[in-house]
C-alpha cells in the first residue's frame, strides 16, 4: 500500500529503475521499470508514455498496467492500445524514428501506473545514462549494470550520486538514490545547471554500423569520426559549374566568398536516418542536392575550401544552449558540427547552417563552446571565441518632433551588428516586404499605442558582411502623454529594460544570456513651443564588473538630446554576482521609466 498524503498533488515517481545488461560491444539490453503514482488530474501528463525506437535501439516488449493505491491491478494495457507512430522532431525533415505511445490516464485518484520496457541496443555508442531526477519527486531511482568484467567503461557524476554497490563478484553494480527532489527550473538558467543529477557512462570501445571506435580519449573519438567521414570530401570539379570565380585579395576574403556561396546556394534540411545522425553525406551529394544538416554542409564547405587550397576541419560541438562539454569525460556529448579553419594569423570558426552570419562571426549558440576539432595530426578540444559586447550592438538614432497632442514624428536609423544583426536579419528575411513592414512596426510599437510607418529602407538586408541598417520615418500617435497642463515624455523610445526572473533571495543558479551586447540610443527631441520643463531626469551612470549603463540628457532651448548606453559584458552571471545583477537591472528599469515633464 502506498502512503498518500492528502496534501499531495500531481504525481510522484515511486520507482524508476534502469537495468542495463551488456553482453558484447554490439549486444546489450535495457530494461526500464517504472512505477508512478498519479494523485490528481495535474499528474496525468506522466500517464502518457512515449517510447522511442531507432535502428540502433529496438523495442522488444512493452508491458504496462494500472493499479489502485493498494497495489491491486485495475487493468492491463492491451497491445491494441499502443499506438505506433513514425515521426520526426519539428527541426528535422525525417529521422526514421518510431514512437510507441500509450495513455494510462484514469479518472479515479490516486492510482499507480507501472510499466516495463525492454529495448535491445546494438551499440555501446548509445550506452544509456542515468537521470534520476524528474520534474516531480522521485522516491527511488536505481541503475543496475551487468557487464562482463573485461568491459572497460567510465562514469561521470553530476550532483550527489553515490558510489555503486557491487555484487556477484563485481559483475553487477547498482547505483541508487532515494527522495530525489524535482528538477529546479529558473528563469534563464545557465544550461549547464539544467541537469542537476545524472550519471553519464562511456564505454572504452564501441562499434557503430561496423565501424569500431573508442571513448578512451578525445583523440580516439576524433579518429572514429574521421574514419566515418573519410572519402566524403571529394568533389568533381567538372560539376562545380556555378561556383563563382573568386576575386578575393586575401585568403580571408576567399573564405567569405565561398561561405556566401554556400549560404546562397544551400539550405538546412536535417535527414538523420540511422548512422546519418553522425555520418555526413558526401560533399558531392550535398552539392547536388543543395541541402543538408550541419555536418553535411560543413563537409561540403570543407570540400569547397580544399578546391581553393584552403584547409578546414570539422569541429564537433555542443551548442551553448545545451550546456558545456565535460572535457575530462571523452564521450558523445555533441549536437552540432561547424568548420574550423586555421590561418597563419588567426583562426576562423564557421557555422555552415547560418544564413545570416559571416565567416568571421559565429551564431551566439556556437560561442564559448569546447569544440572537438577533427584534425589529421591532432584532435582535441579547442574553445570557440566569445563575441564582445561591442561586437553585438544596436544603435537607435533618430530626430524626433513632438507635436502638441503628443504625437512623435521620427526619422531615424537602427544599426545592428553581430548577433543582434543576425537575429534581426533572420526575422526580417522570413517575411515578404509587407511582413517586414509589419515586423518593424511591431518593433517600434512597444511603447507607442499607434505607429504609422511612412518610410522603410533596409539597404543591406541580404548582405551579411555589412551591418544591418534600417532607415525609417514614422509617426507615433500619443507617444507623449498630454494632460491639461503637462506633457510627459519618456525619452527611451526604443530600448527599455524590465527585470524578469527571481529575486536574489529566490535564485539558486547562475543566469545565462545568449550573448554580451551593447544597446545605444541617441535621440534628439524637439518639444512644442510654450512648454517649460518641470522635471528632467537626472543623468545616471551605473558601473558593475559585468555591466554598465550611462543615461544622459541635455536641454537646449526646446531641444532635448538624449543618449543612453546599456551594456552587458558577460553572458553568464554567476550566483555570487546575481544580487548585483538584480540591483543593476532594477536601477536601469527605474531609470528607463523616467519621464521629462513639461508644463504649459
Amino acid at each position: 500500500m502506498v502512503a498518500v498524503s492528502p496534501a499531495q498533488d500531481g504525481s510522484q515517481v515511486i520507482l524508476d529503475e534502469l537495468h542495463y545488461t551488456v553482453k558484447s560491444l554490439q549486444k546489450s539490453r535495457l530494461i526500464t521499470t517504472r512505477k508512478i503514482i498519479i494523485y490528481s488530474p495535474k499528474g496525468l501528463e506522466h500517464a502518457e508514455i512515449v517510447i522511442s525506437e531507432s535502428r540502433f535501439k529496438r523495442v522488444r516488449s512493452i508491458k504496462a498496467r494500472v493499479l489502485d493505491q493498494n497495489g491491486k491491478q485495475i487493468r492491463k494495457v492491451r497491445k491494441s492500445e499502443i499506438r505506433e507512430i513514425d515521426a520526426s522532431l519539428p527541426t528535422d525533415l525525417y529521422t526514421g524514428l518510431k514512437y510507441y505511445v500509450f495513455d494510462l490516464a484514469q479518472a479515479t485518484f490516486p492510482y499507480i501506473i507501472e510499466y516495463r520496457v525492454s529495448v535491445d541496443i546494438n551499440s555501446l555508442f548509445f550506452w544509456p545514462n542515468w537521470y534520476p531526477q524528474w520534474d516531480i519527486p522521485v522516491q527511488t531511482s536505481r541503475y543496475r549494470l551487468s557487464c562482463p568484467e573485461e568491459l572497460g567503461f567510465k562514469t561521470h557524476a553530476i550532483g550527489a550520486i553515490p558510489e555503486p554497490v557491487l555484487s556477484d563478484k563485481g559483475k553487477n553494480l547498482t547505483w541508487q538514490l532515494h527522495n530525489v527532489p524535482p528538477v529546479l527550473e529558473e528563469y534563464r538558467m545557465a544550461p549547464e545547471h539544467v541537469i542537476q543529477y545524472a550519471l553519464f557512462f562511456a564505454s572504452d570501445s564501441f562499434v557503430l554500423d561496423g565501424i569500431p571506435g573508442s571513448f578512451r580519449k578525445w583523440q580516439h573519438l576524433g579518429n572514429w569520426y574521421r574514419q566515418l567521414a573519410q572519402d566524403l570530401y571529394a568533389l568533381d570539379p567538372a560539376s562545380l559549374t556555378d561556383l563563382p570565380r573568386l576575386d578575393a585579395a586575401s585568403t580571408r576574403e576567399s573564405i567569405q566568398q565561398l561561405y556566401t556561396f554556400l549560404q546562397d546556394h544551400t539550405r538546412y534540411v536535417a535527414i538523420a536516418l540511422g548512422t546519418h545522425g553522425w555520418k555526413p553525406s558526401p560533399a558531392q551529394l550535398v552539392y547536388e542536392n543543395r541541402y543538408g544538416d550541419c555536418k553535411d554542409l560543413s563537409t561540403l564547405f570543407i570540400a569547397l575550401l580544399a578546391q581553393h587550397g584552403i584547409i578546414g576541419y570539422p569541429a564537433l560541438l555542443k551548442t551553448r544552449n545545451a550546456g558545456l562539454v565535460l572535457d575530462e569525460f571523452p564521450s558523445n556529448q555533441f549536437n552540432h558540427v561547424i568548420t574550423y579553419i586555421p590561418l597563419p594569423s588567426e583562426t576562423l570558426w564557421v557555422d555552415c547552417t547560418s544564413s545570416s552570419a559571416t565567416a568571421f562571426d559565429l551564431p551566439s549558440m556556437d560561442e564559448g563552446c569546447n569544440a572537438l576539432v577533427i584534425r589529421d595530426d591532432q584532435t582535441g578540444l579547442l574553445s570557440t571565441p566569445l563575441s564582445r559586447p561591442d561586437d553585438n550592438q544596436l544603435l537607435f538614432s533618430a530626430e524626433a518632433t513632438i507635436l502638441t497632442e503628443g504625437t512623435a514624428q521620427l526619422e531615424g536609423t537602427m544599426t545592428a551588428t553581430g548577433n543582434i544583426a543576425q537575429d534581426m536579419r533572420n526575422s526580417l528575411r522570413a517575411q515578404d516586404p509587407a511582413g517586414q513592414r509589419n515586423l518593424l512596426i511591431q518593433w517600434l510599437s512597444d511603447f507607442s499605442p499607434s505607429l504609422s510607418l511612412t518610410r522603410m529602407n533596409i539597404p543591406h538586408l541580404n548582405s551579411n558582411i555589412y551591418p544591418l541598417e534600417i532607415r525609417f520615418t514614422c509617426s507615433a500617435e500619443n507617444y507623449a502623454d498630454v494632460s491639461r497642463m503637462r506633457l510627459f515624455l519618456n525619452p527611451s523610445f526604443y530600448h527599455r529594460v524590465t527585470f524578469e526572473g527571481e529575486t536574489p533571495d529566490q535564485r539558486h543558479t547562475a543566469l545565462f544570456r545568449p550573448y554580451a551586447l551593447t544597446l545605444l540610443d541617441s535621440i534628439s527631441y524637439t518639444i512644442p513651443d510654450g512648454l517649460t520643463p518641470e522635471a528632467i531626469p537626472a543623468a545616471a551612470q551605473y558601473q558593475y564588473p559585468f555591466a554598465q549603463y550611462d543615461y544622459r540628457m541635455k536641454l537646449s532651448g526646446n531641444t532635448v538630446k538624449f543618449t543612453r548606453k546599456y551594456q552587458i559584458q558577460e553572458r553568464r552571471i554567476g550566483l555570487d554576482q546575481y544580487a548585483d545583477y538584480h540591483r543593476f537591472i532594477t536601477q536601469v528599469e527605474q531609470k528607463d521609466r523616467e519621464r521629462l515633464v513639461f508644463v504649459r
Partner: protein
Amino acid sequence: MIRRSTLCLLLFVSQACISIGPPSPVKWGSVPLESITRTHLENASNAAASVTFDLGEMKISADNFEMALTRHVRIQINSEAGQKYANIRIPFWHDEKISEIRAQTILPDGRVIKLRREHIYEEGEKKGWRYKVFAIPGVQTNCVIEYQYRHLSKHLSTIDPWFFQRDIPTSLSRISVEIHEGFSYDAFVRNSPDPYCLPSKERLKQPGDADHWRYTWEFRDLPAIRTEPFMATPNDYFAVLHFQLIEFKSTLVHNVFARTLGDMRNEFYQSYKPYLAVSRRVRKLSQQILGGAVSGTLATEQLYDFVRDSVVTSEYDGYVGSRIRSPDEVIKEKLGSRVEKNLLLVSLLRAAGVNAKPVIISTRSHGKIDRAACRTDAFNHVLTSVDQGLGDMLFLDTAHPYCPNGLLPPNDLTNQGLVIDEGRPRYVNIPRPRTVSMFHARTMRAEIDAEGRLKASTMLRFDGYRNLIYRDKLADHTDAEKFIRAAILEDIENAAVDTFSIFTGDMKAIPLTVNLSFTVENFAEVIGEKIYFSPALFHKHMANIFQAENRSYPIEYPFPYMNTEEVVYQLPENYRIQELPKWNSFSVDGQEYERLIYRADNTLHYARQHRVKDIYYPASNYQHLKDFYTRMVDSDRDLVVLARVH
C-alpha cells in the same frame, strides 16, 4: 459563399466556367527560363514564393471503386524565405497509396536537378495519417520547383477537399474531376473568387462505354491567405472545393448517401444510434449518480458534472466511425475522448428521462458551417443538447475540466449545429452564453508613500470564461505563488507578493476569487517635490493589440467580456493632487471604455471599465478598432501629479 454543382452522369450543367474543352496539358519540366526570374502575378512579386500552377486530375471509377488523383504543382521560389516550400509533406490515410512521385528544380541557367527515389521517405501512424516526405534538391533563390504524384484511395465518400489557395499567391489552380457511371457527387466551392462561376463540363466517351463527364474548376490569380491576430481560423477564407457523395447506382445496387440535409442527418443518426441506446450499465450508472427521483435541470447538472469530472478526457480520435468507443466501454475504462464523453452524457440523460440528443458542430478552429452546403466533412465534433421545452435548448460539452454546466468551451462557440435525431432534419442556433465573462479587480486600499512605494490589497474575481481560463492557468502552475506572479501580477512591474489566498469553490461555476496583497517599489516616480503615477493597475493596456497597418479579414473575439477595476488610493502625507486626468469615456461599434477618477479627502478614487460586447468586426472596421485601442492605451497611461505641500 458556397457555389454548388452536382456531378453525375445524368445531370446537365448549362453554363461553362473559365475553360472549355479538356484542360491544356502542362509538360513536366517545360519552364520558359525567363519566367523563372519574372513573376506571373503582380501581387506575387513581393512574395517569398508563388504557385505557378497547381493542377489536379481526378478520376472516380466504379471499376475498382477507386479515386485516382494525379497532381502536378509548380512553385516559383523568390527568396530565401520561400525555400521552405521545397520541403514537401504529402498526407494520406494509412490504407491509401501515394505513388509515382517525381520532383525537380529548374535553375535559371536551365539546369535541372531531380529528386532521387531513395530520398523519398514515409512516416506517420500505423493506423492513421501517414506522410510521404521529401526535400526537393537544388533549391535556391530564383528557381522553379515542381513535383507530381498519384494518390489512390478507396474512400469515395470522403474525398479530400481541393484547396485553390495557400499561404502564398497562386497563379493558377485547376482541378478536373472525371466521374464514371454510377456515381453522383455534389461539389461545393467555398469562398469562390467568382461567385457566378460554374465548372466547365466535358463529355468523355470511350467506344462501347456509356457516357461519363469531366468537370473542371479553374481559378487564377488568387492571393495568399495569411493568418492575422484575432482570426478564428484561416480555414474560413480559403477558396476550396468540397465533395459530397450523393448516391451510387448500378444494375445491382442503389445507395443514397447524402443528397439532402435529411440524408446526411440520417447517415449520422445511423452511426450514432448504437451509442444512444440506453444499456443496462448506463441505466444503472445514471441511477447511481442521481440517487433517487431527480429529474430535469438537476439531473442534467449532476450527470454533466459526473461525466466531466469522473471520466478522463483522452485524445480525440474522430467524431464518427468505428473508432469511437461505446458508452459501456467509456464507463468501464473511465476514459473517453471529448466526443465519447458527450455521447455517454446523451445516453445517461436519456436513461434519466431527459430529452437529450447529439448535435454535431464545426469548432471555431475547424471553420464555419455553411447551411447551403450539405456535406459530412463540414463537422468535427459532437455536443450534447438538452431540450428544455418551448424551443429552448441547452448545449453541453464535458471535455473541458473547468467548464461549468451552461457554458461551452470557447472553441465550441460556433454559430450552429445539426441535431441528430429521427425528427425533422434541422440546424439549430447555438447561442452565445448569457454569462458575462468578467474580470473584476477591487483594490480598496492602495497606499503610496513619499518614496513612491505602493502597498495594496486587492480582491480579484473571475467570472464566466475568465473563470475557466484562469482555473486553467492555475492548474498549469505547480506553485500557486508562481500563478499569482505570472498570471495575476504580470502587468504590474516589480510587484512582489506579500500574501494571497485563492478560492476555487466546490463547484466549477463558482467564480475564482483571489485575495492578494502586494508591494511595488518605485510604483510612482518621485522627482523633486512632485510624484507622478499612473493609477491603472490590472489589465492595463500597455500596447495596442492591433499594430498591423492593414487588415484583410474580420476580427473575431471568442466571447464577449468585461474588465473592470476599482482602486482607492491613499495618498502620501503632505502631498496634494495637482493634476488629475479627467473623466474619459469613448466607444466604437461593439466596445466601450470608461474611466472615472475623483478625489475625496486624501484619497483618490479610480474606476475603469472596458467592455467588449460584439465579437465580430468586419475588416472595414479595423482602423476604427485600432484607434479605439490607441485611445485606451493613452487613457490607461494617463498620470496623476501630486505636489508636496509645505
